[in-house]
C-alpha cells in the first residue's frame, strides 16, 4: 500500500504571480490560475509544474493529456474517492478548468473536483483514500 502524501505544514503563502511555468510553495485558487492564463490569451492551463502548493476550489479540473500527479492529496473525499469525480455526459466538459501537460508534485487540493477521460477517471477511482491534515 502506498504511503499517504506528507502534509504541507508551512504557513500560508498566497501566490503573487501565477503566470510563471514553475509554481512552487505557494497557495492559490484554481480559478486565479486559470484567470492568469486567460490574461495571457490562453484558454487552458498548459505546461506548468506545480510543486508543494495548496490549491483551492470551488472548481472542477479537467485533466487532459499529459497531466501528472505525484505525491498529491486530492482532498477530503468523505471516505469515498468517487466523491471527488464528475463524469462529463458529453464529449466536452463545459464549466471545468482545462489543464494539459502539467505536473502536480506534492500538492494539496481543497474543494476541487476532477473530470477527464475514462482512463483518468479510472485512475483516480483506483487511488487510496486519504484525509487532509486537520486545520
Amino acid at each position, binding site marked *: 500500500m502506498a504511503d499517504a502524501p506528507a502534509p504541507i505544514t508551512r504557513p500560508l503563502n498566497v501566490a503573487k504571480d501565477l503566470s510563471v511555468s514553475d509554481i512552487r510553495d505557494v497557495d492559490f*485558487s484554481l*480559478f486565479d490560475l*486559470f484567470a492568469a492564463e486567460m490574461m495571457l490569451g490562453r484558454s487552458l492551463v498548459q505546461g506548468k509544474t506545480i510543486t508543494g502548493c495548496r490549491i483551492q*476550489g*470551488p*472548481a*472542477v*479540473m479537467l485533466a487532459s493529456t499529459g497531466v501528472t500527479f505525484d505525491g498529491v492529496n486530492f*482532498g*477530503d*473525499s*468523505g471516505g*469515498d*474517492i*468517487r*466523491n*471527488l*469525480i*464528475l*463524469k*462529463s*455526459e*458529453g*464529449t*466536452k*466538459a*463545459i*464549466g*471545468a*478548468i482545462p489543464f494539459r501537460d502539467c505536473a502536480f508534485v506534492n500538492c494539496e487540493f481543497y*474543494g*476541487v*473536483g*476532477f*473530470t477527464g477521460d475514462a482512463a483518468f*477517471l479510472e485512475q483516480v*477511482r483506483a487511488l487510496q483514500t486519504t484525509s487532509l491534515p486537520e486545520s
Partner: protein
Amino acid sequence: MTEPTATMSTDEAFGRALVARTDFTREAVWLPSLSVHHLNAGKTTIDGKTFTECVIEGPAVVAILAGVTLEGCNLGVATNPRSLLYKPMGEKLAGVIGLSNCRFVNCRFVQVGFTGTDEMLEQLETMLVSARSQSAGDQTS
C-alpha cells in the same frame, strides 16, 4: 448595504453585502466570486436568490439542489448539449457550487456546467435538447 468599518475591509464589506442580496437583475454574476463570498460567510450553498435577466458566468460547475427553477434561460452553447452536464460518481460532490431555492428568470449561462441527481440531469437534458430544436426551427423558419 454593509458599510466598511474600522475592523472590516472594503473587500469584506463588499462580500457580505453580496451574500446578503437576494435579487440580482440585469447584471453579470460571476459564479466563482459569488461562491467564494458565500463560503467566506460560512454558507456552503447559494440559497434563496432570484436572478432576472442576468449573465451567469463561470467557469464553474453548479449542483442544482432543491427548489431551483429555471425559466426562459439559455443554459449555454455546446455542439453536444450533454457536454454541459456532469454525472457525479459518488454520493457527495466536490468542486461544485451548490444552488438551492434559487430562481433564474431569462438568464444566460456562460461557461457553466450542471450536475445533480439523475432526475435533474434528465430534466436539464430535455430542456437543452428542446431549446436546441427550437433554435434550429427559428433559424429555418
